[in-house]
């Protein structure tokens, strides 16, 4: 009994490794993925080392240099408070990168666990959970987030991260559930049950590794949405601390000045948001193609 079941497992492990190697090869030849990975690595480096490169503190005001055009002294110009736009864009990188990664990770853990359980147990648990998740997705993400931030009285990045994570959980749960439903019928799950493995072991050690591809793809797709949602929320002034160098907040504070032709405090954060969002999208597109989920 024991030997045969472990034989089943080793075989699937070897298969898994071969598939992984093949996919890695495909990814290395996928242009969209490579471009995306390159831009994202750039932003990750900025997020980590940005504060060292920044020529000025992001909140330092110089009233002698208000709304200066981009120049050798101020690469991206200065805003109406005389703050260096370049340093603020660098400081904002760290915020959006951290917030969107944490929010997506939270959503993936919560949603993934719910999806695993719903797909495995089925029955009433599944039906009720899916109805609740469907109801949540009948409210636009942005509006649930606004509502929750208002209700929690939260002008803090932490609350935004939590809210976005929970709002994303339903979609991730649905993806994982669909993958688990087809997995749970397979022999290795039945074998694990016969070995009288404990349910958490079956869920996390047996099924989870096999449904990882759709979870990874879903993670990158949601990461893109998280950047989208967090940027928009900070543009709306919800869930950010006052004076924060969030890219969205920078645009909301400065965009009215584009009518006086002061475009730089708006355009540079806008380009930053666009390039970060597009890079994540290129990565998820590449993964989607390779994993064929």
């Amino acid at each position, binding site marked *: 009994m024991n030997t045969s079941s472990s034989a089943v497992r080793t075989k699937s492990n070897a298969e898994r490794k071969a598939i992984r190697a093949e996919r890695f090869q495909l990814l290395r030849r996928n242009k969209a993925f490579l471009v995306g990975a390159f831009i994202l690595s750039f932003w990750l480096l900025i997020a980590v080392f940005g504060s060292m490169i920044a020529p000025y503190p992001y909140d330092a005001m110089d009233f002698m240099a208000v709304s200066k055009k981009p120049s050798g002294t101020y690469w991206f110009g200065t805003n109406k408070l005389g703050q260096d736009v370049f340093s603020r864009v660098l400081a904002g990188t760290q915020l959006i990168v951290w917030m969107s990664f944490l929010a997506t990770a939270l959503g993936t853990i919560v949603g993934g666990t719910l999806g695993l359980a719903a797909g495995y147990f089925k029955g009433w648990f599944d039906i009720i959970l899916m109805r609740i998740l469907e109801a949540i997705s*009948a*409210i636009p993400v942005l509006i649930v987030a*606004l*509502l929750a931030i208002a209700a929690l009285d939260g002008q803090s990045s932490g609350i935004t991260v939590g809210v976005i994570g929970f709002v994303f959980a339903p979609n991730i749960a649905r993806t994982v559930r669909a993958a688990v439903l087809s997995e749970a019928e397979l022999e290795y799950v039945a074998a694990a049950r016969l070995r009288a493995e404990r349910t958490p072991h079956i869920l996390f050690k047996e099924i989870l590794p096999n449904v990882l591809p759709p979870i990874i793809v879903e993670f990158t797709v949601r990461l893109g949405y998280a950047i*989208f949602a967090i940027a928009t929320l900070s*543009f709306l002034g919800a869930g950010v601390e006052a004076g924060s160098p969030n890219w969205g907040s920078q645009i909301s504070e400065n*965009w009215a000045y584009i009518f006086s032709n002061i475009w730089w405090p708006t355009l540079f954060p806008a380009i930053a948001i666009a390039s970060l969002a597009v890079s994540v999208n290129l990565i998820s597109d590449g993964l989607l193609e390779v994993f064929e989920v």
Partner: protein
Amino acid sequence: MKKYILNRLGLSVVTMFIVATIVFFLTRILPGNVARRYLGRSATEEDLVKFNAKFGLDEPLLTQFYRWLRDLLTGDLGTSMAFNKPASELLLPAIGYSSRLALMSFLIIVPLSIAGGIVAAMYRGKLVDRFLTVGGLSAAVIPEFVWAVTLILVFGVTLEVLPVTAFPTRGDPSFLSQIEHLILPSTALLLVLFGYIARITRASVIEALESDYMRTAVLKGLSRRRAVVTHVLRNALLPSIAVIASQVPYLVGGLVAVEIVFNYPGFGTILRDAVGGRDYAVLQSGVMLTSLVIVLFQLAADILFAVLNPRIRSRISE
């Protein structure tokens, strides 16, 4: 068929009830009471009691929930705490304005995205296809407000060809005179939604192009173009209907951001102000109305899908 529609209708009612439960209890999640948060720290005990009595906040939570639901069902959207007048007086005109913008956007988005998907499918693998699919989906991940601000910068400020407010400043604000003003806001929404709809249309057109009936049509002597128009579209548009309905929540979410940039007195602006002013009645009713619109759209799409798709139709009537 009747049974299917009733079943879907029932599910929609359940969904709305769950939405209501979430919306109500979410705004009461904090132990601190609404009156204190609303009136501020300086309010006296007496003020709080008066406030609570006025808005029915002194009753048990479940009674409040029941009363709120009952009021909603009879069309009473509650009282705005900030303006001290019925929330419906604020919400209904705003929703009217928003639907103009949404309608205009829909009229632009749906045909363009479907056309984009068909073109991409017919030139599959060519440069046009890459441009439409990769470009479309890249545009889709950039937030509406970034597009809106960029569009204003390019077309409103630099080229000065289009108005930068969504509302005519002078004269009669009829829908027709407003159209010019709605072009930029609708374009911002188009850029975000085009990619998703075009991608699904492309995929289903490709599937249809490779199908047996298409081969038959071509062998029969129909030109490729003619075969696409007469045979492919009918089948390929079905999935597009489903994806368009699934994009409605995103359209509504996008409206909020776009309205604020273009200073449009729609429902997004009201909602933002309600969040800022902690105007719970407006907020709750606003979210309920939004969800109702979305659920109705999804219901309509499901039914339309079933009516148009003979395979589902026969399965339902069995």
